[in-house]
């Protein structure tokens, strides 16, 4: 499949990004959505897809965010937001929840990131700044544990620097674990011998190649 370039339009909105990630998650998968932007993918999962959501604080079969009378302080997602329970849900303690990750039982996780390297390293837990308070949560367990680690992030930081890099400069979360990166302008396969651009929005592979510090290859 050659690279699909959607040049007749602009970059993806955040909602469209979430929908694109959801589109690519296979039916029947067990999936963990990281806190922040990845959480929004849940709203776009296909009805009847058989996808089961795992939340690291101890549940399979997590439903949508809870509102009104459905709010229960004993039922939250990893971001501590009240959520709901779907039929067929199961609860388990923290050691079991993370055994599921490390043991390779989760099919997909979606994480946010500060940086991803061409080789599939991810940095998403610590800026390394002297006054920063490091907080890792389950990010390292997820990055190292899920069979398929997808990253969802803007391609450029607020200062304009690229977040897809030859080598991460922020402290690493995981080494060589990311398979695919979803951004507002392109989808990249990483972690292989070369970075492959699968799809673009509002730009082309050739144009991206001039803006990124890593060599890019179109899909065959």
């Amino acid at each position, binding site marked *: 499949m050659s690279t699909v370039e959607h040049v007749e339009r602009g970059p993806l909105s955040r909602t469209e990004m979430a929908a694109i990630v959801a589109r690519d998650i296979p039916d029947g998968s067990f999936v963990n959505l990281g806190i922040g932007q990845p959480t929004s993918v849940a709203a776009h999962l296909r009805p009847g897809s058989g996808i089961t959501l795992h939340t690291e604080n101890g549940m399979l079969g997590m439903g949508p965010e809870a509102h009104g009378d459905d709010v229960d302080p*004993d039922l939250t997602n990893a971001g501590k937001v009240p959520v709901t329970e779907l039929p067929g849900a199961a609860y388990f303690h*923290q050691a079991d929840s993370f055994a599921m990750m490390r043991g390779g039982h989760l099919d997909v996780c979606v994480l946010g990131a500060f940086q991803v390297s061409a080789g599939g390293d991810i940095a998403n837990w610590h800026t390394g700044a002297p006054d920063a308070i490091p907080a*890792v949560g389950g990010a390292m367990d997820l990055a190292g544990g899920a069979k398929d680690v997808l990253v969802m992030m803007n391609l450029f930081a607020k200062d304009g620097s690229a977040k897809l890099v030859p080598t991460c400069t922020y402290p690493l979360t995981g080494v060589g674990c990311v398979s695919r990166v979803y951004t507002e302008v392109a989808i990249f396969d990483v972690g292989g011998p070369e970075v492959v651009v699968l799809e673009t929005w509002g730009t082309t592979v050739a144009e991206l190649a001039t803006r990124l510090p890593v060599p890019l290859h179109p899909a065959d």
Partner: protein
Amino acid sequence: MSRTRVHAGPDRAAAADAALAAAGIETGSTILVGGFGMAGMPVVLVDALIRHGADDLTVVSNNAGNGDTGLAALLAAGRVRKVVCSFPRQADSWVFDGLYRAGRIELEVVPQGTLAERMRAAGAGLGGFYCPTGVGTLLAEGKETRVIEGREHVLELPLRGDVALIGAHRADRFGNLVYRRTARNFGPVMATAAAVTVVQVDEVVEPGELDPEAVVTPSIYVDHVVDLSENPAGVESRA
């Protein structure tokens, strides 16, 4: 050998104080505190720990306090020397943030699954385990490593508490526990990993009223139960 003691009475705080007095908390103790955010957080027990007055504590918990109550109040009271946790920084963790930036509290950050598994190892009598999480990161620096089945692992050591403070939904008088939803989180693991486990529950029932197939934490791990129900009928106060 010890049987679980139930602490109950019209004054919940007094019942919690009695449980903590019996738990043997001392200056310098390591306290495992359950909860993920506020879900499963044993707020009544943490408040009793503040009144207890022990200081120089090491606290092991997933987070480092929210807002100004519970764990955050314990930190603000200056009782904690060190926090071992996975995720201290949150929108409402200003008490911890202030102490950390002022250099008044030590922090050991542990990946969440490793935190849970280190306590599981302590409770299961293991000397540690080789774990792939964190390999190649700052959190693996200085740790012994070993390649197993072609993959690098780091040696993680057991994490043991002197006392665990956890929340559960219901207990029977023997100390068998069931939890509610994601409030289960660290409770079952912490109950195994401490020398003494104190649990606050919404209700205490008679032995036989909990389905034995559904018991999550068997009574062998539980030393003190504090009954928070409005009318702890049928349960004699032993506070």
